[in-house]
């Protein structure tokens, strides 16, 4: 979330799409209700099904799963056409005025400039700004941009690598399904860079300025086109577009709208681009950085935000530092590649906060290797693994299926159930040598060899050794969890773990200490990374989570003095925050974003202050929020260019002329002494300092603007460009298990998956209280489809995809209606994820024991590698 849960109460308008917060985040959803009750805020819900969230909405639109970009593109077009835009915000706080290089082409035929069909990748050289300063008023003489009609790649970019693009979190290009052992290392040629003096046109008239490109890009997304693609009738779409953009009616900046989404947006083969489309809409409307605004990801687990912050993905280190690649031959090369220099119109300023990358990186390496990390050995940079290819979730399973991954430690997740393509994952585990599962219940993964379809004969042939370790549940351990609002909240132990159950960190410690012993005794190819790892916890066998939190916060390794304030931090003291980090090895910090969480003042995560002087629900003294305890990110954008809040009733931060500082109710997310007339951009994490409507260079793998592509399995051709229906950079997987359906094969019903209030993932099927509330698996089927197939409510039905089948009871409902997509009658069905073959009902033989993810395809988003669980094709019949 750019904002936070409580902040939703400050909004005037909500668009809830790709998420179902009433059902999946009921406690957070209270703030949406609060906004309705206290501010008469309006709520628009767009979903393939009429959900319990929809039941409290003011406007519900049923959308075809996977057509979200078409809908949002239509909204963008509507906002531009009707002048429902935040003009000053757009000019000053976004790259709307920046001029894009000549040669860049919009995807009128489905492809941006630079596509190489052989590798299914883009040469992104033209996805860049033009060098050159103020071009305001020179629109007439400029060469326009056209949609291109050939897919031929443009010549490789040859500009010297003096200025790197920012370390975006996505788009590194580890795309596609490489075979086992195949290496697709980053090319060694210098990557194109952003210009240091960007060309711009403050009149927004230049045909190649971002605003004009945006206008051109979405001019194709007419209400008629939106209807053809999404199935939402034109009049309903217009109603929603009018309502949402009404916050910017007549250019008034006081009102604010928010967008709430969850995995209904991420789980597509173009998921990142859906979120981009929403972010662009919010920039266009000037809703980012403002109380009651933002783009808000509702996270599905209590600590999934923490897992991401801590680098629980292969391509990032803690704090979203990029993992090094083999091309990063030393620390200097790595830092040169990952540290951006600012890129902006010359008269403007850019804080370019990622310029601190060396400080974050060296402090992180010091936290990893302590005294063994020295300037001479590049602070242990060579101890860290270099990522030579895609190691994302689906790739790990693919590699195991192909036989190159021999073992797996599975903690805090039910690998075969969470999919996609559970059967492929089960078959992969059959080939593994060993599997360790740390869980609180015996789950599907630890009993993969008992999955339906495996005969007693086959069981004998499965040689995987399974070690099942009893772990402590959430109430049995202390520590912190990071919620969607970026709050790190400390919790205490409620009860000790039962029986032989152990804390996860104790198990990890045991494994590490024994592996280290082995390396000590027996040596090995390269023992240094293990032998030199710091393990300076009070109790090495049982590391306390408080010790870890302190390590993440970081401490001073030498006496440090701030030259401005003359404040000194003594050697060994906890750091007050990331502003103190150094790149010379005098500071240690496990995660720069978490610096400030456990200072000399103690555990900030355990704070429970309930003061809220502004009444905006900021609660500065409740827990601790990254970064630097800011509750709303980019809050400089809540003020106009002179530093005055857009809305005086919702003042967050402002420029104080007498103290010459930014002050406020929230912690300013900005350089505190940057005078408004210096024109520093509020989006300090981008080297441009502005919000990116156009995502330049390597920001994204599949285009600087979002474009509608069909899901990999779709019942229709792409209405915008039938010859380029799918996301061009998305690759299908290629093992025997990877099958993809077409409507021609009789798979013509769209299926989407979701969760229910009554259950938590695959856990609560072991809890009678939850089981009682929703006792059995079901498939939600439109009344009309059920009638066609002779299915009645509670009948047993079988859903079949190209991969496998799923059996459950029919839930015949009026809440999903038949749709007309591009003139074709299309049905959608929906299935909750929660059941499997281990649980109370499963063990009692009361259901078919099929896992839903047997149905889903292995295909992923090219930026975040999230599988496409939403919107695949199935057949439906009575079982």
């Amino acid at each position, binding site marked *: 979330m750019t904002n936070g849960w409580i902040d939703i109460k400050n909004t005037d308008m909500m668009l809830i799409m790709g998420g179902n917060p*009433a059902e999946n985040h009921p406690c957070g959803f209270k703030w949406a209700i609060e906004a309705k009750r206290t501010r008469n805020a309006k709520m628009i819900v767009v979903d393939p099904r009429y959900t319990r969230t929809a039941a*409290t909405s003011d406007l519900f639109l049923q959308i075809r799963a996977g057509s979200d970009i078409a809908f949002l593109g239509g909204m963008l077009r509507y906002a531009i056409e009707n002048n429902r835009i935040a003009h000053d915000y757009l000019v000053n706080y976004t790259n709307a005025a920046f001029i894009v290089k000549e040669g860049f082409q919009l995807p009128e035929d489905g492809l941006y400039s630079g596509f190489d069909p052989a590798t299914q990748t883009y040469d992104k050289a033209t996805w860049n700004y033009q060098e050159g300063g103020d071009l305001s008023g020179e629109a007439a003489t400029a060469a326009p941009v056209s949609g291109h009609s050939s897919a031929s790649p443009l010549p490789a970019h040859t500009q010297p690598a003096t200025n790197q693009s920012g370390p975006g979190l996505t788009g590194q290009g580890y795309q596609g399904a490489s075979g086992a052992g195949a290496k697709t290392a980053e090319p060694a040629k210098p990557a194109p860079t952003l210009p240091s003096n960007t060309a711009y046109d403050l009149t927004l008239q230049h045909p190649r300025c971002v605003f004009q490109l945006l206008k051109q890009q979405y001019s194709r997304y007419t209400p008629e086109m939106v209807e053809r693609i999404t199935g939402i009738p034109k009049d309903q779409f217009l109603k929603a577009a009018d309502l949402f953009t009404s916050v910017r009616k007549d250019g008034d900046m006081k009102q604010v709208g928010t967008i709430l989404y969850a995995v209904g947006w991420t789980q597509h083969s173009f998921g990142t681009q859906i979120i981009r489309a929403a972010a662009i809409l919010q920039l266009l409307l000037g809703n980012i950085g403002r109380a009651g605004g933002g783009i808000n990801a509702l996270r599905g687990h209590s600590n999934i935000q923490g897992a991401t912050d801590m680098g629980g993905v292969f391509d990032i280190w803690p704090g979203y530092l990029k993992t090094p690649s083999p091309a990063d031959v030393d620390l200097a090369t790595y830092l040169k590649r990952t540290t951006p220099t600012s890129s902006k119109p010359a008269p403007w300023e850019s804080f370019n906060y990622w310029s601190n990358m060396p400080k974050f990186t060296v402090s992180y390496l010091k936290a990893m290797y302590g005294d063994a990390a020295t300037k001479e050995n590049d602070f242990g940079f060579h101890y860290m693994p270099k990522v030579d290819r895609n190691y994302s979730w689906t790739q790990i399973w693919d590699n195991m299926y192909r036989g190159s991954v021999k073992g797996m430690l599975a903690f805090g997740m039910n690998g075969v159930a969470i999919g996609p393509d559970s059967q492929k994952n089960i078959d992969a585990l059959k080939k593994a040598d060993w599997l360790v599962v740390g869980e609180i219940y015996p789950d599907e993964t630890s009993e993969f060899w008992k999955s339906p379809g495996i005969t007693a004969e086959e069981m004998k042939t499965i040689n995987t050794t399974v070690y099942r370790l009893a772990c402590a549940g959430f109430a049995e351990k202390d520590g912190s969890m990071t919620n969607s609002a970026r709050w790190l909240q400390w919790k205490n132990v409620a009860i000790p773990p039962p029986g032989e159950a152990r804390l996860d960190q104790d198990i990890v410690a045991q494994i590490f200490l024994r592996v280290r012993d082995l390396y000590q005794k027996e040596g090995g190819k390269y023992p240094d990374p293990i032998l030199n790892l710091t393990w300076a916890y009070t109790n090495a066998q049982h590391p306390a989570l408080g010790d870890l939190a302190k390590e993440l916060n970081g401490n001073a390794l030498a006496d440090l003095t701030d030259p401005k304030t003359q404040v000194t931090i003594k050697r060994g003291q906890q750091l007050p925050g990331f502003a103190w980090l150094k790149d010379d090895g005098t500071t240690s910090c496990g995660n720069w974003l978490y610096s400030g969480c456990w200072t000399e003042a103690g555990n900030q995560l355990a704070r429970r202050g309930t003061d809220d002087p502004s009444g905006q629900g900021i609660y500065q003294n409740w827990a601790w929020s990254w970064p630097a305890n800011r509750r709303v990110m980019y809050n400089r954008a809540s003020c106009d260019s002179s530093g005055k809040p857009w809305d005086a009733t919702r003042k967050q931060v402002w420029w104080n002329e007498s103290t010459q500082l930014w002050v406020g109710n929230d912690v300013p997310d900005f350089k505190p002494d940057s005078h408004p007339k210096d024109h520093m951009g509020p989006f300090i994490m981008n080297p441009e300092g502005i919000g990116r409507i156009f995502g330049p260079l390597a920001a994204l793998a599949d285009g600087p603007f979002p474009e509608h592509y069909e899901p990999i399995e779709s019942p229709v051709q792409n209405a915008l460009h039938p010859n380029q229906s799918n996301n061009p950079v998305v690759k299908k997987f290629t093992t025997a298990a990877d099958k993809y359906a077409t409507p021609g094969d009789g798979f013509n019903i769209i299926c989407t998956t979701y969760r229910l209030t009554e259950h938590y993932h695959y856990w609560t099927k072991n809890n009678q209280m939850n089981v009682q509330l929703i006792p059995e698996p079901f498939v939600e089927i439109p009344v009309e489809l059920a009638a066609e197939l002779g299915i009645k409510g509670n009948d047993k039905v079988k859903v079949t995809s190209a991969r496998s089948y799923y059996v459950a009871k029919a839930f015949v409902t009026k809440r999903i209606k038949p749709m007309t997509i591009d003139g074709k009658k299309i049905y959608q069905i929906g299935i909750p994820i929660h059941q499997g073959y281990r649980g109370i009902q499963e063990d009692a033989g009361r259901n078919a024991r099929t896992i839903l993810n047997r149905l889903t395809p292995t295909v992923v988003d090219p930026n975040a590698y999230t599988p496409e669980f939403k919107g695949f094709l199935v057949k439906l019949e009575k079982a």
Partner: protein
Amino acid sequence: MSQATLGIRRISGHAGPAPGEDVERAEQVCKLIDTTTCIGCKACEVACLEWNGYTFTDTVFDNSYQTMPETAWNYWNLIKFNEHEREDGSITLLMRKDQCMHCADPGCLAACPADGAIVQYTNGIVDFQQANCIGCGYCVTGCPFDIPKFNPATKKMFKCTLCVDRVSEGLEPACIKSCPTGCLHFGSKDDMKGLAETRATQLRENFGFAKAGVYDPAGVGGTGVIYVLHDVTNPEAYGGLPKDPRIPLLVRLWKGPVKWLGGWSMFFGVLGVAIHYLRYGPKIPQDGHDNRDDSAPGHRDEGVKP
């Protein structure tokens, strides 16, 4: 259930006034359920079970998110899910928390023949006293909301107590405490009525629900549980909420004219006996004793202790 420290207003099957009647005028308590902000999460169902010490029951999927078709003797709080087609053809999902309505004029109490099996406290809570319940099920006939449920094992009737044990200690009912969206409120009837009317006005004026209103049916004297409905003219759409609930005629006759008639027929019968005695003298050597008793069958003396 617990009588705790609450004063009693009415007692089922009881001769004479309730002990302590008119001594205390407690505030009327009331639960407000705003169906327009209910998200059907069922937290109230679970809180109700846990507070009242009931464990789970076996349920079967029945083409709905609804946990079971009706409330049960050990499941007093149930969200009713109703797919409802609006006049314009669009669909909506109405979710209503169903439980005892704690009527001001409780039909169950009126119908109950067992002295002290059903009481109404001065704060308005209607509570079953299982110790005095004879399991006759007359309360079911008396209730226009189909709330009292029979436990075949103990042969007693059960229903929501409005957490009288919590309320008498100054706490809110368990369901209220668990509600994540704040669609449930608890307080005095006057305050809840005010809050409900304010919300209904807001729904009419700002959210386009022209028929939004408050459900507090007069036919049962008003209720201790009131609803805000998107369409107060169609409460039936919310899972069978009666439009104009009344105590069934038979029950009203039973406790009204019939009782009165029965009393007088008894009186005249005894009078006849007396006249007969005066006129004809004793038939059996026995005292002429006026044993008028207007109670229904099953009268027992051990009633409710104040």
